[in-house]
């Protein structure tokens, strides 16, 4: 990580825990390299804060290569910053100008309460998955490839839906804090494959019910979610989820 010569002003949301009021703090940062990732820039900020005997900024991160979905930062009014199809960890400082002021906020949603600073509680997503985002059938050993024919289009669509990393940017971007892009991707990846058929109806019913219980908003079809999704999950999944749910409610024996 080479030292660079960018000077930045960061306005960062600081909040000590869920129950306290938060607010913005401004920090000046010198020597930022355009080759740094956004999270590396935050590492520099935190080193500076530690040296000044101040509390470092808490933020979620893990893989730093765009696959785990942890790095939730709402940067200058957009989840994961200004680039399309990119997570915060893969965003580089060359996307900003020397002298910029950058505002960084946590994901905002009633269903994602702030734990500390930029870290939010995304357990709601896990509870939605636990409600039905799995197959209970024992799939056994890997089958002979041709024994379970899957149309190419279905395989492609299921694979694209499965690319969702559960980051929550769709919720963060949506004016209604709706989780429908996430939930629809998780419903689609199974509904499109033979292994997902047994629980197809009950899955759609339970996952949607859990999504509603978590307090996420409703979809107005603005497409903000898929436009901001780092994995470019298609909006088509939401329409598929609507079909799955309407089909399930009108045909299943369950409640």
């Amino acid at each position, binding site marked *: 990580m080479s030292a660079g010569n960018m000077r930045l002003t960061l306005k960062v949301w600081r909040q000590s825990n869920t129950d306290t009021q938060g607010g913005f703090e401004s920090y000046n940062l010198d020597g930022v390299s355009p080759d740094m990732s956004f999270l590396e820039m935050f590492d520099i900020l935190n080193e500076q804060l530690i040296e000044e005997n101040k509390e470092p900024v808490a933020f979620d991160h893990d893989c730093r290569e765009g696959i785990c979905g942890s790095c939730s930062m709402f940067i200058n009014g*957009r989840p994961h910053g200004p680039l399309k199809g990119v997570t915060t960890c893969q965003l580089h400082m060359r996307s900003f100008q020397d002298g910029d002021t950058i505002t960084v906020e946590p994901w905002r949603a009633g269903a994602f309460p702030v734990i500390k600073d930029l870290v939010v509680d995304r357990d709601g997503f896990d509870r939605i998955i636990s409600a039905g985002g799995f197959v209970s059938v024992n799939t056994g050993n890997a089958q002979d490839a041709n024994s379970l024919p899957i149309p190419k289009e279905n395989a492609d669509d299921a694979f694209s839906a499965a690319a969702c990393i559960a980051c929550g940017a769709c919720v963060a971007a949506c004016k209604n804090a709706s989780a429908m892009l996430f939930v629809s991707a998780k419903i689609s990846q199974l509904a499109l494959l033979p292994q997902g058929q047994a629980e197809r109806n009950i899955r759609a019913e339970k996952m949607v019910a859990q999504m509603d219980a978590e307090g996420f908003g409703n979809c107005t079809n603005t497409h903000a979610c898929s436009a901001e999704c780092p994995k470019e999950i298609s909006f088509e999944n939401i329409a598929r989820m609507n079909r799955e749910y309407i089909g399930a409610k009108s045909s299943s024996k369950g409640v």
Partner: protein
Amino acid sequence: MSWFTQALTSSIGKKVIMSLTGLFLISFLVIHATINAMIFYNDGGETFTHWGHFMGTNPIIRTLEIGLVLGFLIHIADGLWLTKNNNDARPVKYAVTNPSANSSWYSRSMGLLGTLILIFLVIHTSHFWIPNRSNQFATGEELNLYQMMLDIFQNIWVVIIYVLGCFSLFWHLLHGFESAFKSLGLYHLKYNGAIHVAGVAFSIVVPTLFALMPISIYLGWVY
């Protein structure tokens, strides 16, 4: 809760209700615009009055009218309920947002546009529909709607309110027409293009036709 109420009060169920009532209101607009466009025959309101009489007295149409009122009420109640829920889903707002980077302003303003249409509807029904139906109820006679139009649209402010109402309808439909199909799960490459073209065309043609009515009367093109 029965499976039915559960389905209808779920997030997706509420959207299905919005979509079906929205499409129903769209079908009403087709008929309403067609019949009112009869004033452009400029025959002193003869054709218009003929069809207006049919719509106001035919028992089948009068029964359907109850459905229309219900359709409006359900669409409005569900729409306002959804807008409130959606607003509550983000109790703490962002300090900085850049929504134009990912969506159109009118797709994000359906609640506002709907409310503007609602305000227009209150004014509009108190100009024509309510006086006419109450007169029919009291005396059995229909009012001369054509003459009422000629009188009411002499006032420039009324004309301006009607034109603004048409603008609200235009933006509401520009998002709503396509959106209604998506809510029902009808979203596929093979027909998305057709729905988009139909939606844009409908959103332009119908509100323009409506707006031309008060304008033409005010300017004396129709008399």
